[in-house]
Every structure is written in structure tokens, then in C-alpha cells.
């Protein structure tokens, strides 16, 4: 391992902004995409169930 201390690890040899920025934006995009798909599914299921209920009530 090439890190002598935690602060050295976070400093990334002076490239902290670029390295953590790259990994950070990638993690953020993946996290948000996963969350959005999950939310879409919840909403879709809610809508479909509501449609079913109203159909059941009218017939």
C-alpha cells in the first residue's frame, strides 16, 4: 500500500479534486439512476393498482 496516512490518501498526491471528483460524479450518477428506476416502479405499481380499484368500483 502506498499511503502513509489517512490525510495522504485523501490528498491523492495533489490530485484530490480530479480523482475524487471523477469517482464522486460516477457514484452519484449510478446512485441517482438506481433511485429513479426504483421510484418509477413504485409510482407505476401505485397507478396500476389505482386503475384496477376504480375499474372494480365502476363495474
Amino acid at each position: 500500500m502506498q499511503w502513509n496516512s489517512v490525510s495522504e490518501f485523501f490528498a491523492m498526491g495533489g490530485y484530490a479534486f480530479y480523482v475524487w471528483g471523477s469517482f464522486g460524479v460516477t457514484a452519484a450518477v449510478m446512485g441517482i439512476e438506481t433511485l429513479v428506476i426504483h421510484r418509477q416502479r413504485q409510482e407505476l405499481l401505485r397507478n396500476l393498482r389505482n386503475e384496477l380499484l376504480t375499474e372494480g368500483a365502476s363495474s
Partner: protein
Amino acid sequence: MNTRVIHWFKFSSPQNFYVLAGRMQPWFAALAIVLMAVGLWISFFVAPTDAQQGEGYRIIFVHVPASQMSMFIYLVMAAWAGFGLAFNTRLSGMMASALAPTGALFAFLSLVTGSLWGKPMWGAWWVWDARLTSELILLFLYLGFLALQSSIDDPRRADKACAVLALVGVVNVPIIYFSVKWWNTLHQGASVSLTRSPTMAAAMLWGMLIMVIAFWMYTIAVTLARVRNIILDRERHTEWVKHAVE
């Protein structure tokens, strides 16, 4: 009759694929998480400091996987779209639609991480280099695909129009891939190729390959989850969806 034959066409029906995708999705998600953990460990704790770029080169562990994903997703998306045009299968268009947003995000990530790498190494966030420009066009092709799709109300007609766009855009993928050979670009050439031994330390190479596989697993997991949403939405008036959501 051989009863052990797998009836692949069974899965080309959205109803059956919905169930299959739901069963496969958690496994790909789990693989993505495990491989990403291993890949990140190698990226930061095993791979040595680069002789020329110091710690700044570590951006490679997200930049290369994101970039190759953006190109591969395009090819897979175009293949599904072409299959849909040729055989008029409903699932094909749904698969292409499920892949497009993830492809666009990876093209975006490729450009952003590349920019974050270019600034300290080249001294510029952006240059109109052949590799960078053709990757930007790839992002625009994805965005065009998504815009065209949302502008046509009938999903089956949207699938066909988008399929034509996707197939025409395929010409851009080899241009991106070979741009570093065809033009004298600022972007470096391939570090890994099938015909030569890699020009990287073994730990760097392993870290990169594991991250690439992790991104593949992530893409498959996310695409399967999204295609399930698309199937539910488009088949909402069928009996099986009514039973499935009850």
C-alpha cells in the same frame, strides 16, 4: 421430441421476459456491488502510483469502464433496435429503450471524468480532439434517441423511428474506437489491445478489468429493472399485468 430444449422464443414475449428479468436482476445487482467493492479496493490500495501521472492516473478506473460501456451499450441498443425492425418483436424496442438512458449517462460520465483527467494532465478541460469530439457526438446520438422517442406518442412507431436513428448512428462507434489511430490526437492510444501485450502494470490492468466487468453487471442490472418498468407501462391494459400487480 427432445424436451430439454430451451424455448428461447418464449422469452421474447414481454410477459415471460418480465418474470425472467425479475429473477435475474438481483443476481446481477449483487455481482455489480461485489465486483465494484473489489475494483475500488484495487484502484486505491493495490494499484501502484504511476511513474508519470502520480495519483492522478487513478481516474482511469472509472474513465475507461464508463467510456467502453457507452460504446458497447450503443452497439447492443442498435442490435436490439435492428432486430425489432427485422422481426417486429415488441420486446426488442423495449430493450433498446431501456438501454438508451444508461448509455447516455455513461457517455456523459466518460466526458466528465475525461475532462477531470484532461485538466491536470493536458492543462485543458476540453479540446476538439477526434476522440473527445466523437464521444460527444455519441452523447448527442443517445439524447437524440431519447428525444425522438418521447416525441412520438405511439410506442410501436417510436420504436421504429428510433431504430432507424440508432442504426444510422452505429457508424460513429468505430470512429470513436479508431480515432486515436486515424488521427493524430491528444488523447492517448489504447493501453489494452487484443493483439499486443498491455502497456500497464498488472495491478492497474486487473483493477481496470474488474471495474469494467462491474460496470457491465451494473448496466445489466439497471437495464433489466428499467425494462420491467417499460413492460408494465406498455402492457398496462393486458390481463397478465392486472394479475401481476394485484
